[in-house]
């Protein structure tokens, strides 16, 4: 139990006021007021901390054993005097407020110094007032504290005496005045009806029972709601966020919102369910509206305002759904509040360090990496990524809402969150990639740096804690993440050390993981792709000289995410891993020089996809009543929607047609080894997800037909369009990127057939694609790195300089194209079997055609790069880095082994698949595989073709010709000798005729569609944000109008 003598909550008020009044003795310029301020806020923090700790400990030892402490003032019992309460919620919120106050005060030290001791008093009173709002149990006293806070805020806004701040302050005061009028009306009416001002007694008084009581409640609720800045009556609040000194905005966003939220939390129980609905509806409108309008905002501070308002809207939804969320409401709200408050404070603090406020100007943060890290953490926390608290909160929220069948609401929440992601990631992309040479370095003296850093650490800590107390996530192993943290800490070391450490870490993990997966071939295969892939990529990482700042923690984050997917014990862990992987891959993909727009679109599709997935998972969990992976089997709640959404979520990662537009750019601009990770490995995560979902879905239920039909067509069209588009690329990297879309199309097609052979194709493709794409990415990437260009027409004749690369690429493309004798043919052969035995002729036909089209780009690539004329500037270029060749040849060896013994892969996979799809398995006799329809003997083919080839070669040698090696230009050229290789290297626009004939298929319809959608959203945003005219009177009008409209809406509804 907390010692009331030392940690009496009333001290917060007493000490705060005493200190504030005492400061009146000081005059400006002295240090003492600021020391007092820090000491006082620290004391507040300690008091809250003592209570918080008590509640946490109690909460863990006994079930809700600790009752909230009551503090009576004036020595009388409530309701006759005012009482304060300190319960778990109050402890949590006051702690948040007081830490914000402490750090926010430190951040404002120099501003406060300039303004003198009075400003310090105002600051202390502000924090004290917020505490008061949280703790008081008396509605009129609540009003008093709210007014204290309003006035203090209005005072602090003008710490920065600019016209805009002044105007914002004036608008704010007018708005606060209007709100206070209605709040007072509500209070006095509530008193008249309920005969008390004490919240607990008013609850007993049953206000909703009387008509006048309902009206009183309406005024109370609407006034407190307006304090929370509901859209669209919130222009004044945006101005404040925008124009107040950054340090003040930070506190407003972090602590102010929390306090205002809790005021409403206290009042709402007085009312009836209609009030909860009102709050939820207002929240939904706000969350959606302000995030929509945020799309068009190009200044950082104001955008933060939009985002803050939006997050509060989310809180309102949560509050409005108290009944549905039940005991979890406070958990969810705490998660959102923590993320929002900490992240927003960080962002505002960062804003304060920058000279300019345009979103592009945030690129200046790159000059101090720690600031960039903080910015990134905050952005990811706001969108709801792991490991931050909002991730868990959003998960629980959507789960419970969909569990209660409030689908539309969760759709709104996810939609609005997506909009928020849209602008946040655009912004973050600017910070990561925009040119920052002309920007001034951010001003970050220690006292300004400290607060955001502490909050950053708290953000991660809170995420960890929130996860650890959530059922279903308590057993999550944080060891990989700890390893990543370690890597982040040694980021200053040279790359090769970190590389070695990373390889050691991953290897250790593989060794640790293997026994756990033994016997589960499916997961073993994917674990192999993910983790062996990781080792191979990292192996190639030795090429890098220097530090490679930030690369290793992020790469390992991606691999950790992938590993979590494999090991996930339930949907939550799976989703966690998925999001973790997304984070890591985002950062890897955006490392390329011109990757900003592509990393951005990757992120948007990822976020959209993961929201779809979340929705689907929550439906699954709603039906199954648990979040175990088995919930995916036989979903009962809206199964068609659930499965479709999950599939869509995974299809964003497999970049299937319609959701693919991010891939060519993102992969096309990525650096060599990252390209390997992103394409050969990362895309398989989507495949793994599809497999997981489809295994659960099965093909029996009636809804699976249309889903599989569509899925099959998506796969087939992806294959076709991917391959055709690949043929028209000038950049080798983009060519490979499109090729990946096509290859993944085969896999999706195979999975959609829901048959033994289809899955065999999918899984064997997953493996072989990993092998040959790995080779291609590493070699091509290595070459692009070496030559400094990915454009194929700038290459040519490289076979002379890079024979090893050529050989590797040759083998890879033979495998890819499916030409016998290499293992790629096996997949083609199975495809024919599949198409005929399953009767899927049309999709199958498309897939087969795509396979033929693949020849186009494969030849183009190998020809324009390695064959033809060697350019003058490349005559001395050397073989690619040995660290690329080593993994390449390891992969090559694997291809050769599988080509001789395709049964090594296909047989066990087939046996495993027979467990799911017993019909149509391939029978194996040695290397000979037989189906109902045909047969294929990989070994024999290898020997026969090899034999013929050797024989033909021997025959040729036997002719004993004198062979003369000639120079490059020694060709038939109409009797002329070409003077420059550029003139005789046919490479640019290689398939011009083909494009002329069927280029219509590659019109960027999908891209146009998404652009059109984005245009509509932005247009809507631009149209509606004009309600914020900037005129204080208009805002006043909005406020009154909001009240009137809601009043009549509610009456109509009553």
């Amino acid at each position, binding site marked *: 139990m907390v010692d009331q003598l030392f940690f009496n909550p009333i001290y917060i008020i007493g000490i705060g006021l005493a200190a504030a009044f005492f400061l009146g003795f000081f005059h400006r310029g002295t240090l003492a007021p600021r020391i007092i301020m820090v000491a006082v806020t620290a004391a507040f923090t300690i008091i809250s901390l003592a209570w918080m700790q008590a509640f946490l400990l109690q909460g863990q030892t006994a079930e809700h054993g600790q009752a909230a402490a009551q503090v009576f003032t004036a020595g009388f019992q409530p309701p006759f005097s005012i009482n304060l309460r300190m319960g778990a919620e109050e402890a949590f919120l006051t702690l948040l407020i007081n830490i914000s106050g402490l750090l926010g005060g430190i951040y404002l030290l120099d501003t406060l110094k300039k303004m003198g001791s009075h400003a310090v008093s105002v600051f202390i009173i502000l924090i004290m007032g917020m505490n008061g709002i949280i703790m008081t149990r008396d509605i*009129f006293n609540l009003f*008093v504290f709210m*007014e204290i806070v*309003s*006035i203090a805020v*209005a*005072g602090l806004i*003008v710490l920065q*005496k600019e*016209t*805009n701040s*002044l*105007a*914002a*302050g*004036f608008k704010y*005061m*007018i708005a*606060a*005045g*209007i709100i*206070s*009028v209605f709040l*007072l*009306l509500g*209070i*006095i*009416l509530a*008193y*008249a009806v309920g005969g008390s*001002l004490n919240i607990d007694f008013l609850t007993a008084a049953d206000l909703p029972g009387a008509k006048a009581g309902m009206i009183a409640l309406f005024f109370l609720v609407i006034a407190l709601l307006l304090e929370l800045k509901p859209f669209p009556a919130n*222009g004044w609040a*945006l*101005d404040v966020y*925008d*124009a107040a000194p950054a340090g003040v905005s930070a506190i407003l966003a972090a602590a102010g919102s929390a306090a205002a939220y809790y005021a409403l939390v206290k009042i709402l129980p007085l009312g009836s369910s209609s009030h909860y609905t009102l709050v939820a509806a207002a929240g939904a409108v706000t969350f959606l509206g302000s995030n929509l309008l945020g799309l*068009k*905002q190009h200044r950082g501070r*104001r955008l933060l305002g939009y985002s803050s308002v939006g997050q509060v809207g989310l809180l309102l939804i949560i509050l409005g759904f108290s009944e549905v969320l039940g005991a979890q409401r406070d958990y969810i709200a705490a998660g959102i509040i923590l993320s929002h408050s900490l992240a927003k404070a960080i962002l505002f603090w960062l804003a304060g360090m920058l000279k300019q406020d345009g979103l592009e100007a945030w690129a200046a943060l790159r000059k101090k990496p720690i600031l960039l890290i903080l910015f990134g953490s905050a952005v990811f926390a706001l969108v709801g990524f792991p490991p931050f608290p909002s991730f868990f909160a959003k998960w629980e929220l959507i789960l419970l809402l969909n569990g209660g069948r409030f689908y539309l609401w969760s759709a709104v929440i996810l939609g609005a969150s997506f909009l928020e992601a849209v602008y946040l990631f655009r912004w973050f992309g600017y910070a990561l990639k925009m040119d920052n040479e002309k920007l001034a370095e951010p001003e970050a003296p220690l006292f300004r740096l400290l607060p955001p850093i502490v909050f950053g650490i708290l953000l991660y800590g809170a995420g960890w804690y929130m996860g650890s107390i959530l059922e279903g996530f308590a057993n999550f192993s944080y060891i990989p993440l700890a390893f990543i943290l370690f890597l982040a800490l040694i980021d200053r070391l040279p790359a090769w050390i970190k590389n070695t450490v990373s390889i050691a870490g991953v290897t250790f993990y593989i060794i640790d993981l293997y026994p756990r997966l033994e016997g589960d071939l499916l997961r073993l295969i994917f674990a192999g792709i993910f983790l062996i892939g990781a080792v191979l990529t990292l192996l190639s990482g030795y090429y890098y000289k220097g530090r490679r700042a930030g690369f290793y923690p992020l790469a390992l984050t991606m691999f950790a995410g992938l590993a979590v997917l494999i090991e996930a014990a339930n949907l939550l862990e799976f989703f966690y891993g998925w999001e973790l992987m997304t984070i890591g891959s985002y950062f890897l993909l955006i490392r390329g020089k011109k990757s900003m727009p592509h990393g951005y679109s990757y992120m948007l599709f990822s976020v959209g996809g993961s929201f779809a997935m979340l929705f689907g998972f929550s439906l699954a969990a709603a039906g199954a009543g648990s979040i175990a992976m088995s919930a995916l089997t036989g979903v009962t709640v809206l199964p068609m929607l659930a499965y479709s959404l999950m599939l869509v979520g995974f299809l964003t990662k497999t970049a299937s047609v319609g959701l693919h537009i991010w891939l060519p750019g993102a992969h096309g601009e990525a650096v060599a080894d990252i390209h390997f990770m992103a394409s050969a490995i990362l895309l398989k995560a989507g495949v793994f997800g599809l497999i997981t979902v489809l295994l659960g879905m099965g093909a029996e239920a009636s809804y699976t037909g249309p889903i599989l039909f569509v899925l099959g067509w998506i796969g087939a069209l992806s294959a076709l369009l991917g391959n055709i588009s690949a043929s028209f690329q000038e950049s080798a990297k983009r060519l490979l990127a499109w090729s990946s879309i096509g290859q993944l199309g085969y896999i999706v097609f195979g999975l959609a057939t829901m048959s033994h052979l289809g899955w065999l194709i999918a899984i064997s493709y997953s493996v072989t694609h990993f092998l040959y794409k790995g080779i291609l990415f590493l070699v091509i990437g290595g070459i692009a790195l070496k030559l400094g260009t990915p454009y194929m027409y700038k290459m040519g004749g490289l076979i002379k300089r890079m024979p090893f690369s050529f050989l590797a690429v040759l083998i890879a493309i033979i495998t890819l194209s499916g030409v016998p004798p290499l293992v790629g043919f096996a997949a083609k052969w199975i495809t024919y079997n599949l198409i005929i035995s399953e009767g899927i002729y049309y999709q199958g036909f498309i897939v087969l055609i795509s396979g033929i089209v693949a020849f186009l780009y494969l030849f183009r690539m190998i020809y324009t790069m390695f064959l033809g004329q060697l350019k003058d500037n490349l005559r001395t270029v050397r073989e690619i880095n040995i660290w690329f060749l080593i993994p390449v040849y390891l992969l090559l060896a694997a291809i050769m082994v599988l080509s001789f013994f395709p049964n090594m892969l296909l047989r066990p996979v087939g046996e495993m698949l027979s467990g799911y799809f017993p019909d149509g398995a391939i029978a194996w006799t040695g290397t000979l595989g037989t189906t109902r329809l045909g047969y294929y003997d990989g070994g024999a083919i290898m020997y026969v073709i090899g034999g013929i080839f050797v024989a033909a070669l021997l025959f040729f040698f036997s002719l004993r010709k004198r062979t003369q090696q000639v120079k490059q230009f020694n060709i038939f050229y109409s009797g002329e000798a070409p003077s420059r290789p550029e003139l005789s290297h046919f490479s640019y626009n290689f398939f011009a005729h083909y494009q002329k004939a069927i280029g219509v298929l590659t019109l960027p319809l999908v891209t146009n569609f998404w652009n059109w959608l984005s245009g509509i959203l932005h247009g809507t945003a631009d149209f509606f*944000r*004009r309600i*914020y*005219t*900037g*005129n*204080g*009177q208009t805002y*006043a*009008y909005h406020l*009154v109008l909001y009240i009137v409209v809601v009043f009549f809406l509610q009456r109509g509804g009553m």
Partner: protein
Amino acid sequence: MNFGSLALGLGFLLILIGFWGLLTQKNLIKIVIGFSVVDTGVHIIMVGIGYLQGRTAPILDAALMQRTAAAGNQAGASADVGSLIVDPVPQALVLTAIVIGLGITALLLAYVVRLHEQRQSLDISSYEDLKW
């Protein structure tokens, strides 16, 4: 019609008048005045709600004691003060509310002074730089 309801009606009327000023006047000072009027309206309502027909101020002075005694005699039993005085709580509240209103008004006026200093204009539409 009792005085309580009358006060309520008057209060609401004042609020409306105040809002008219607040919403239509361009002059910053008039807007502040409008707010003051609204505020006053609310205070009148508060006092009106505490009013009980035919009762006296909640001060337990000699005069009240006499009336208590008188009332007690009439009723034939000891009457308590509770049946003679109006509700003291709204009066206490309105005191606080007035002071708060005063604070807001003072601050608003201070803003007006400073705004005027910036642009030499009292027109609210001169301060619309922040928008959208």
